[in-house]
């Protein structure tokens, strides 16, 4: 068994530098790599390009990096719910590339799986397709979208082991699996690091080969953006 275990978040982020391109898992605030984000804030790396479906909220998630102006460019599909983000974008301080959510997922997967580019129907005929190759297959139009190139991918899983195997929970899974192995170095933080051999080989969502560093995270807040409930009967 090849061990990917590192002692802590500091070791996990070794080699992070200004102007790097990062992938960050999560949908809204669900399944985001909280420990890695906190460390990025602390390290105060600047000029980052962040590929992430959302940009956090004003005081949590990627919003913390935006607040400190560590991000030069965001590649996302949805960036509502974030006033500081909107201000930086409309003022031109922050470059923003908005792309369809399914395209975001597949550009990650292409990087993970060694595909240079994919053809997707999403965005054809819209400004998303401007300047991009389009092509007809069987009477339907598609846009050519390229694999991402990133330096680090930060993902968050529910359980993991030293071999780097990961299991995600519920909808906190989202973009995390497709980002594993999609960057030069994939850092996985997990809620629980279990002994090797405890995870059922049949039920592993991401095999350790896609992960370079793994550690057990601390103090997860797991904030809820829209708490919707029914009254108890």
């Amino acid at each position, binding site marked *: 068994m090849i061990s990917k275990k590192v002692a802590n978040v500091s070791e996990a982020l070794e080699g992070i530098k200004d102007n790097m391109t990062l992938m960050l898992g999560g949908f809204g605030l669900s399944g985001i790599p909280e420990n890695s984000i906190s460390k990025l804030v602390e390290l105060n790396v600047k000029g980052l390009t962040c590929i992430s479906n959302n940009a956090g909220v004003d005081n949590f998630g990627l919003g913390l990096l935006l607040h400190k102006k560590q991000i030069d460019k965001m590649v996302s599909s949805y960036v509502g719910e974030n006033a500081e983000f909107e201000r930086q974008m409309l003022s031109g301080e922050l470059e923003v590339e908005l792309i369809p959510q399914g395209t975001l997922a597949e550009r990650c997967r292409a990087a993970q799986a060694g595909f240079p580019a994919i053809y997707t129907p*999403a965005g054809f005929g819209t400004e998303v397709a401007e300047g991009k190759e389009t092509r007809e297959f069987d009477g339907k139009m598609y846009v050519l979208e390229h694999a991402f190139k990133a330096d680090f991918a930060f993902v968050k899983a529910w359980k993991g082991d030293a071999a780097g195997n990961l299991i995600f929970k519920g909808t906190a899974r989202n973009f995390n699996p497709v980002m594993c192995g999609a960057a030069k170095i994939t850092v996985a933080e997990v809620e629980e690091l279990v002994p090797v051999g405890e995870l059922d080989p049949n039920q592993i969502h991401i095999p350790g080969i896609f992960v370079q560093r793994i550690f057990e995270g601390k103090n997860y807040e797991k904030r809820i953006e829209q708490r919707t409930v029914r009254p108890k009967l």
Partner: protein
Amino acid sequence: MLDKNGIAKRIAKEVKDGYYVNLGIGIPTLVANYVRDDIEVEFQSENGVLGMGPFPFEGEEDADIINAGKQTITTLPGASFFDSALSFAMIRGQHVDLTILGAMEVAENGDIANWKIPGKMVKGMGGAMDLVASAENIVVAMMHTNRAGESKLLKRCSLPLTGVGCVKKIVTNLAVIEVTENGFKLLERAPGVSVDEIIAATEGHLLVEGDIPEMQL
């Protein structure tokens, strides 16, 4: 004239037995409340869940179980969780039978705009561009006019598009309208709304053929 719940109620009639349905944020989310009890339907949310149930009871909400609107949800027996790639495989691969989403503008050729107001509001397209580019059955749920009273059913969209020629049906507070090769076609009137009121509120060309029935809710 219908309120948002009325629109959702009417759209619920588009949901057939055995359908997998993707509901957008806003009015579409309300549709789930009005689907008939005697048919089997499963709701998909593009953040990675199939088989969504109602909101959780107070105190039972789980940050790891949300829908695409970031609302806490529950799942029903037979549900499954999956990653974003498989989720959009369901959508792009046309395994989802019906997509219901909101819009800022719809054009008489079926174009839709719902993700950006240049220089003013840019929330992003989320999964909407994948949904409208792939789905065979797209119903738009929206108010007939915007807050300024201007029609949202246009000859051509003025805002940046989300998708081209994709909308099949529109349900508004005033009417049910089909998008045909010849433009908008009025199918049903909301209770108490006249054909003339609908024509007046519709900027795009509106085909009115024969007697237009009132919606059955």
